[in-house]
């Protein structure tokens, strides 16, 4: 049986930090199209400490992909959101460094993430 083979266009052949930076730039460009400003000075992004993401790779990707857009040369500011989880048994809240943590008190209760899995564009500073 014949089969179909698809190669992605070059700009889509990227690691997931690149994919995410690309999504971020798409969002920014959409705003740029409908808002009159000359250029973007700073992009502030909230990144939770608990998500699987390499910050340096995200920074690098953004710098590369911003070329030729209004965000070229802008500062990419990462606001780190510390991880927090709550135990549903004892209702105690804890600071956590990793996503899948058990309650240090109840032991067999997986903490529910209340903060730290964010990945979003907060705002852009424009001129």
């Amino acid at each position, binding site marked *: *049986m014949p*089969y179909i083979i698809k190669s992605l266009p070059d700009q889509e052949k990227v*690691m*997931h930090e690149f994919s995410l930076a690309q999504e971020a730039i798409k969002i920014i460009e959409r705003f740029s199209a409908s808002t009159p400003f000359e250029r973007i000075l700073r992009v502030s992004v909230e990144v939770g400490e608990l*998500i699987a993401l390499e910050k340096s790779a995200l920074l690098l990707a953004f710098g590369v992909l911003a070329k030729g857009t209004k965000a070229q040369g802008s500062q990419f500011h990462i606001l780190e959101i510390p991880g927090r989880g709550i135990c549903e048994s004892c209702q105690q809240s804890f600071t956590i460094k990793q996503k899948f943590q058990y309650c240090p008190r109840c032991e067999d209760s997986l903490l529910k993430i209340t903060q730290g899995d964010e990945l979003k*564009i907060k705002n852009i500073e*424009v*001129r």
Partner: protein
Amino acid sequence: MCEICGCGTDHHAHHHHDSDLITIEQDILAENNKFAEQNRKYFLEKNITTLNLMSSPGSGKTTLLVKTIAALKATHDIAIIEGDQQTDVDAKRIAAEQVPVLQINTGRGCHLDAHQINHALSDLSPNNNSFLLIENVGNLVCPALFDLGEKDKIVILSVTEGSDKPLKYPFMFAEATLMMINKMDLLPYVDFDVKQCIAYAKKINPNIQVLQVSATKDNGMEEWLAWLKNCKIVNEKSTHTNRD
């Protein structure tokens, strides 16, 4: 498919000015999730049971797929989407089984995303009431972040890997409905603790289901095929348009 995915059209967005600071407050994965929801709707309308198979490279996903197709194709419609960075090797293996297959080469990309699947659906146009099995790029990290609109995610782990993989790559195991431990026939030759592996996976995801198989030796395949068929029946009964 562009009328479905809205490629190239302008998207509506809200914003407001705060001097020269524009508030955006938008999730970066929102775009992917939007495509995933479109895909999910498409699958529901056509009653296609879609499963996203993920693992590290070399866990035996393609062999498992080939065996699954051979066992099911007489009674069920099956279509396959193959994700690899390079080559059409996997597509050729699947195509030899006489089922529709589409290979996506992601280049440097380390995962499939919902937009790629959205376009793949228009090229592949899987039949109504079929199974669509998606073999994601061999990688235990990135694919976990990207919802494709599938019904369930399946993580495959082989006994030639470490039994602590669920703890080392928890995101993948947290997202999966089913963990398949493959290459069970090699167990006598390797240092793999099945019990420990299952305990670790359940630590991350208490609801994860587990099957132990050897795709090359056809061990455990009956249980796997039963799982698949049950998954399809559940899909057919489902009247929801949204996932929880």
